[in-house]
């Protein structure tokens, strides 16, 4: 098992290298550069800037330099936010995004999975229709609609919660953004859970567990549920990586200082080190979480061998 784990983790490194390399090249292929939007920049100043950031060197040299920095945990300076290194920016934003993302995730799990189970157990009856309809709405409504709507009702009208802001992660400030971010995820989880549980409930082994008179609760809990969780687990790996690295929309709507804007703004600004830094964080998280999902898969399905 330990051997398998080391093997898997070592196997992640080449994948990560490919991701970094491709992102590096694709960013440079895009036309324009980090200082194109600066007004009235004299050619002399511009050349100096390029030299200062090493942009005047050949691409392979820049690439090698970047990788060397990465090995030492140095993501380089941000080209647009001049007083900060990329590491500082990520260190500021990531805890915010992480907190919000985990809160959204817990909410999605706590709501989505029980809702999916309930819909499967009452398949074709009123609770199922109600939950399925609700899930369809939650998936269809974009978060820039849901967010402001929630703020309008719960903050402006009822004055239960603050409209926006972060305040060092005070729970009151976390509720509305977490609901906005978690809602579509909960809906998707509920649909996944419903479909896969319906399938296992129809299986021959569940029928034979019922034939043993084990009782509805035991049949559901011991026999039907674990295999039904498999699709949920494989969805969760990439989904977690997505929510914890920050959502541009939700963070903008609620004015949260997370990392969501870095990827988008960084790409628009051609802030190469910032975008690459985010790619590394996002890529690593995705790979590690997928790896964990595979391990969990093995625990749920003994036919998957980790040998």
């Amino acid at each position, binding site marked *: 098992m330990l*051997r*398998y784990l080391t*093997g898997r983790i070592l196997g992640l490194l080449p994948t990560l290298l490919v991701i970094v390399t491709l992102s590096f090249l694709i960013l440079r292929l895009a036309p324009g550069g980090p200082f194109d939007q600066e007004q009235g920049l004299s050619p002399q100043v511009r050349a100096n800037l390029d030299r200062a950031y090493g942009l005047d060197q050949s691409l392979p040299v820049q690439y090698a330099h970047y990788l060397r920095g990465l090995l030492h945990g140095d993501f380089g300076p941000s080209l647009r936010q001049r007083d900060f290194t990329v590491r500082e920016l990520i260190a500021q934003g990531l805890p915010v995004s992480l907190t919000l993302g985990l809160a959204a995730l817990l909410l999605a799990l706590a709501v989505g999975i029980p809702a999916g189970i309930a819909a499967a157990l009452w*398949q074709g009856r009123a609770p199922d229709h109600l939950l399925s309809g609700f899930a369809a709405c939650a998936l269809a409504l974009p978060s820039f609609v849901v967010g402001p709507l929630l703020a309008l009702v719960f903050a402006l009208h009822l004055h239960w919660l603050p409209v926006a802001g972060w305040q060092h992660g005070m729970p009151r400030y976390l509720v509305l953004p977490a609901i906005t971010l978690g809602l579509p995820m909960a809906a998707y989880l509920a649909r996944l859970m419903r479909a896969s549980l319906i399938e296992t409930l*129809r*299986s*021959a*082994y*569940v*029928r*034979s*567990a*019922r*034939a*043993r*008179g*084990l*009782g*509805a609760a*035991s049949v559901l809990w*011991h*026999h039907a549920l*674990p*295999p039904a969780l498999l699709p949920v687990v494989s969805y969760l790996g990439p989904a977690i990586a997505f929510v914890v690295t920050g959502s541009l929309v939700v963070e903008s709507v609620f004015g949260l200082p997370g990392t969501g804007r870095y990827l988008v703004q960084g790409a628009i600004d051609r802030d190469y080190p910032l975008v690459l830094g985010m790619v590394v964080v996002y890529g690593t998280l995705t790979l590690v979480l997928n790896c964990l999902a595979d391990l969990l898969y093995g625990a*749920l*399905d*003994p*036919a998957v061998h980790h*040998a």
Partner: protein
Amino acid sequence: MADRVLRLSDFSVRFATAAGSVPAATEVSLSVAAGECLGVVGESGAGKSQLFLGALGLLAANGRAAGRAQLQGRDLLGLPARELDAVRGRRVGMVFQDPMTSLTPHLRIGTQIAQVRMRHLGEPAAEARRRALELLRRVHVNDPEQRLLQYPHELSGGMRQRAMIAIALAGNPQLLIADEPTTALDVTVQAQILALLQELKRETGLALILISHDLGAVAGLADTVAVMRQGRLIECAPATELFASPRQAYTRALLEEARALAAPVPAQASGEAPVALEARALSVSYPVPAGGWGRRAALAALSEASLTLHAGESLGVVGESGSGKSTLARALLKLVPHTAGRVVWMGRDLDALSRARLRAQRRDLQIIFQDPLGSLDPRMRVAELVGEGLRVHEPSLSAAARRAAAQAMLARVGLEAGLMERYPHELSGGQGQRVGIARAMVLAPKLLVCDEPVSSLDVHSQAQVVELIAALKRETGLALLFVSHNLGIVQRLCERVLVLYLGRMMELAPAGALFAAPRHPYTRELLAAIPLPDPRLQPGRLSAVRAGEAPSPRDPPSGCVYRTRCPFAQAACAAARPAWEAASGQGAVACRRWREI
């Protein structure tokens, strides 16, 4: 009568479908007493399973049962879920057809047995585990301590079905319902499972209901036999009476079909036709994972098989699963690469041919597969499927001519022209296999390889497809290589039979000789395992069944691979691989003791 354990009276099962309410079983009255076995026979779709699933409240969500189902005098219909759960597993144990899909895949065998005891008998966990071990011993599972901790996929088919029976017995039930318990198993394992049920019935006084389409299986166990057709009970009588003098024409037809499959057919003496296909010391091994980091070991699926097939001859290949019979069929057509040996077709070494020449040659070498629908491209219509080979091998043919040829071939295999525009999923299994045969035969091949062509069909279509293949062989004079685990069918269709075990040839002989006087101890075991549809003989045959399963092909025994199961094995058998010796009457056998035993 008070001693009736289960009594169904005017019992009906219906399913609500989009097309309205469909009856699965109609007004059936049946009963079974303690210590008695009731056999319920009929084709698939006759409603025999739904009857008992309905009695125990296990129907699919759209099913409804009506009538009375009394278990020890108490009506089960309308019992609240909680009380029904106290009956299932406790008073009635059930064993289902496919032990792979009917055991919960992520729970250890021991856990699944212990759950029943903890639930119904209130035993503490430790005690339940101890009892689980006893139960595994009771059903003759080998290495029971180890099995307790294993998952279903780690067990062989036979061990899985034994584990299923152990679970069914865990609550000390008064009634055991076995629903096609041996259909998915090899013939030797089937005989062992039936023998176990026979032993349980004899020693425990359990009431037993055996649901099966196989009259041979029922003949060995049942005291009373009920025949169902289209949801109705058409005949019910003591077994000896029913088998000796069936009253219904349908029962007579079923019996005739079963006896035809089991009765020897005199082999047609094949004239000295030229050799069409020859395999010389053909071996196939597959890489399998061994240890971590992608290390591989070779699994010998087929080891040094040599055979000749004459033009117009039919050769049957039999053996249990894992014997290498499908591998042999595919290797002969170069559909899997062989690791050693030669395949020679009409004097030409197939290995020496270029890819283009080999493809041209394939026109003569056709195959039909086990899964009729899975082996047809789901996005092609029947007309295209049948015509595809012509498009490749006769590109000059016009589309209209191709279509006409396909239509003529479909008519020959007994399919209406109306099916031409259907997709595979719109066909029944029997129709799909006919399309598979038409697809192969439209090229007028000289060799047809049939890889378990009927084992996924129900009995009725089985007989028809076998009849069709036999007729095509007579008409066209094509050579036939027929792979099957069903010895009855091979006996009816083939002139010579090859017996494989763990990838090695055990015996090759003319069919008549092989079935009348088998030489190899393994051939004898196979023949003894065939269930005979005769209640006077079959119980005795079952009692004589020996236990034992094939070892893993990853780790075959030294010397003779059969020695670990062989009642005649000696020390010398482990030392060296037995020679392939010619025996009288065109036969050959790989056993050092065949003359003495």
